[in-house]
């Protein structure tokens, strides 16, 4: 689509977007999770009338406030970077992608920003119930905003509800509900918000454990552990369930990503699920890419087939199937897809030429081709493949996909264990003396962040080279800037975000050490 793409520009644009997204996601999950925990605590305060619960609520609210602003700041950059760094993409899909972003602003951001002011400054200005409602509305607003941006992201993973318009040379929305209830969007939203609840719970559990280790604020710590433990355990179990659903959907709509995250090269029946594995390079290659094999693995036989198709005899395609094709599974070879995509592109070029010279007859005739079902489903569907240079370009980094997925899953099970133990020890009455557990809980604070970021790494790296699955490559979506400009802004953003992160952590640590106001 773009002649003479500067790969350095593409790489730096990707790096800048990844940098912003990674930093943004360091702050957002805590906002999503902690907002609900605070709302639950304030509800207890309003219902019980006990001032201790107000003190507990306000302590966690202070930490929420420190984290909240920086999440907002990095979020605005992400929205505008679609335009600044991915302008070709913005036009190609703006008709579809822009709508969720606008709805996010109208429906969610205003709710959040209006009532966060009441939440922070309204304690002595509004009555208890109005304040409590505001706190809940902040939590709902924050999570609603996550819904819309995840709907937008899900559409990039699984483009649905659209049709290509040759006249405007872009995809246009034809079914809003298909986009909103896209299976990937539903999975992604549920998995993301529950994992954020988990992260918020671990944050509260870890800091409360620190207070107990220091023999300080026992009342606050135990009450907080009660709320975070229960909320965290429910969230962690839901994360496991929604994660399973997400993986099944990936197997259907992004089978190359699925094969990569399982490091499955050769498709098979009775395919096993790798619980733990270590990859090593081999001499074998697919195109220019080295094939990885397992140096060590613990595998549950047949489970991958069962999880993906409900039957252990089901065939799970591997990367080789996706490259060379598998007629029995109805998978076309990449070379064939590239050929068909090029034909579709050539038709589009003919259409554009006819429009330029005002050849209305030709415009009409080619326009009819775009309405032809066979052309749309068997040729235009592979439009994006016309930008693929080599067959193996469609394989993302297997190492990154595999490790990010498996480490995330392992951590997910660890979190279930930690929350279950917290509740057990709390009800047994020994949590304050179980120092080994308090240390584990405290040191586990960073782990949900790691798991959450790994989830996004898998999502985004695993779908390379596509910016929109099968429809547009990352190279085609980039803004035509000089790479020097993007390098400069990358460095500026990296420096600024890092300084702000250090500030936030430093302030947060100080506030925790100071403890709640008496």
């Amino acid at each position, binding site marked *: *689509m*773009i002649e003479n793409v500067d790969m350095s520009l593409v790489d730096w644009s990707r790096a800048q977007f990844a940098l912003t997204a990674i930093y943004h996601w360091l702050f957002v999950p805590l906002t999503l999770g902690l907002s609900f925990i605070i709302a639950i605590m304030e509800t207890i305060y309003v219902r019980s009338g006990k001032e201790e619960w107000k003190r507990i609520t306000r302590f966690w609210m*202070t930490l929420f*406030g420190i984290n*909240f*602003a*920086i999440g*907002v*700041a990095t979020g*605005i950059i992400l*929205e*505008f970077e*679609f*335009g*600044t760094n*991915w*302008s*070709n993409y*913005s*036009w190609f899909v*703006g*008709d579809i*992608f*822009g*709508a969720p*972003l*606008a*709805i*996010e*602003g*109208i*429906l969610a951001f205003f*709710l959040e*920003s*209006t*009532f966060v*002011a*009441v939440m*922070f*400054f*309204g304690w002595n*200005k509004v009555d208890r119930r109005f304040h409590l409602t505001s706190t809940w509305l902040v939590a709902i607003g924050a999570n609603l905003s996550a819904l819309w941006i995840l709907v937008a992201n899900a559409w990039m993973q699984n483009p649905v509800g659209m049709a290509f318009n040759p006249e405007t*040379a872009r995809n*246009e*929305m034809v079914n*809003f509900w298909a986009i909103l209830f896209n299976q990937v969007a539903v999975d992604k939203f549920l998995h993301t918000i529950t994992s954020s609840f988990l992260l918020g719970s671990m944050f509260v559990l870890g800091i409360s454990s620190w207070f107990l280790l220091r023999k300080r604020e026992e009342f606050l710590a135990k009450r907080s552990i009660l709320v975070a433990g229960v909320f965290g355990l429910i969230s962690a179990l839901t994360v496991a369930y929604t994660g399973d659903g997400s993986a099944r959907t990936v197997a259907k709509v992004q089978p190359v990503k699925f094969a990569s995250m399982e490091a499955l090269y050769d498709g098979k029946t009775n395919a096993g699920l790798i619980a733990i594995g270590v990859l090593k390079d081999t001499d074998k290659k697919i195109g220019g890419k080295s094939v990885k094999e397992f140096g060590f693995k613990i595998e549950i036989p047949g489970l991958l087939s069962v999880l993906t198709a409900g039957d252990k005899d089901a065939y799970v395609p591997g990367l080789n199937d996706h490259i060379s094709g598998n007629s029995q599974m109805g998978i076309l070879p990449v070379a064939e897809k590239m050929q068909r995509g090029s034909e579709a592109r050539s038709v589009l070029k003919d259409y*554009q030429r006819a429009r*330029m010279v005002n050849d209305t007859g030709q415009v009409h005739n080619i326009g009819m081709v775009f309405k032809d079902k066979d052309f749309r489903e068997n040729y235009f569907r592979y439009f994006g493949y016309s930008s693929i240079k080599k067959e193996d370009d469609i394989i993302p980094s297997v190492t990154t996909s595999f490790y990010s997925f498996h480490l995330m899953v392992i951590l997910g099970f660890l979190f279930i264990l930690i929350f279950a133990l917290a509740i057990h020890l709390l009800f047994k009455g020994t949590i304050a003396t179980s120092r080994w557990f308090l240390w584990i809980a405290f040191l586990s604070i960073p782990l949900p962040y790691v798991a959450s970021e790994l989830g996004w790494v898998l999502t985004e790296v695993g779908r390379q080279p596509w910016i929109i699955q099968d429809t547009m490559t990352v190279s085609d979506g980039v*803004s*035509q800037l000089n790479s020097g*400009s993007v390098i400069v802004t990358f460095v500026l953003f990296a420096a*600024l975000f890092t300084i*702000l992160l250090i*500030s*936030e952590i*430093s*302030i947060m*640590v*100080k506030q925790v050490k100071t403890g709640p*106001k008496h």
Partner: protein
Amino acid sequence: MILMISHLFLQHYWWIIVSLLASILVFLMFVQGGQSLIFSLPENNLQKTLIINAMGRKWEFTFTTLVTFGGAFFASFPLFYSASFGGAYWVWIAILFSFIIQAVAYEFRSKPHNVLGQKTFDIFLFINGSLGPFLIGTAVATFFTGAMFRLNLMHQVKWANSWYGLEALASIRNLSLGFAVLFLSRINGLLYIINTIDNSSLKKRSVKRLTINTIPFLIFFLFFVISLLLSKGFAADPRTGIVATEQFKYLRNFLEMPPVLIIFLAGVLSVLYGIGTTILKESVKGIWFTATGTVFVVFSLFLVAGFNGTSFYPSVYDLQSSLTILNASSSLFTLKTMMYVSFIIPFVIAYIWYAWKAINNTKMTEDEMKSDEHKY
């Protein structure tokens, strides 16, 4: 009935929504205006804390409106989003930078162990307060003076130089709107301080600064408006889509759209009345008039930029790449879907109003700043 809504109607409808968001955003930049005064207006630290907290309780609204403005533009006129943001890269990045540092500065400035120190975060607020309105004003001025881009057949943008939008700063007309917006923000900031903070000394100082800021505002604003009315504009033939320059185009737009002219004039008078009544009658309600006036003026300028067969984002590098509300918009289906979503806006405005009143029902005092309440 819904089925009869045409694409043309929706393109105009969404330009009105975008214009409304832009005009509300310019008013809400009173927060930035107030921030730009934190080193010069207060006579002591307590007054500075009062100003920062008055503005800090509203910064989220400005920020959210900016984000929603961007989102609405993306959804309704994606070609503008891709052409301007992907081309005028440095201008938008500079604007974004100034807003990142604002968001954290409020929450971090007075917190112990904030690494950079309170002074640095106050400088962040000042930078955002000064650069934000100025750059947004300068960027919007290119709606009338043009930008340096070309679109190919696939609608991909190519900027004509490696300044990527910074060349807009070399135009005196663009600069004049940038400075006009900056001084208007400061005026609105001062009037908000007068209205919200109960401190006689600060009020007196604010009234004095109001006079000082009104003079440059009037100079820059009048220069921009007069040059706008007398200059060539960018006319787009609604039938063929061909864009051509036309003398007095924007003057003609005002004259051919009398309601827009009336809104514009009412807005100007309202701003002047709000300033005048504060300076001459010591009223504390001037902000209501300047707020209404600001919204009216900006709204009418946006309508002049986009309606009546006008290119709202002209290219002076390749005239036929210029954007109009007809060629830059989303499809009929998307605009219609978004229209249904927009019906919720009155409800949003209603709850914002309610919450705003709940927080602002008593004036901010020095005692409040000394209390245990959450403050910046």
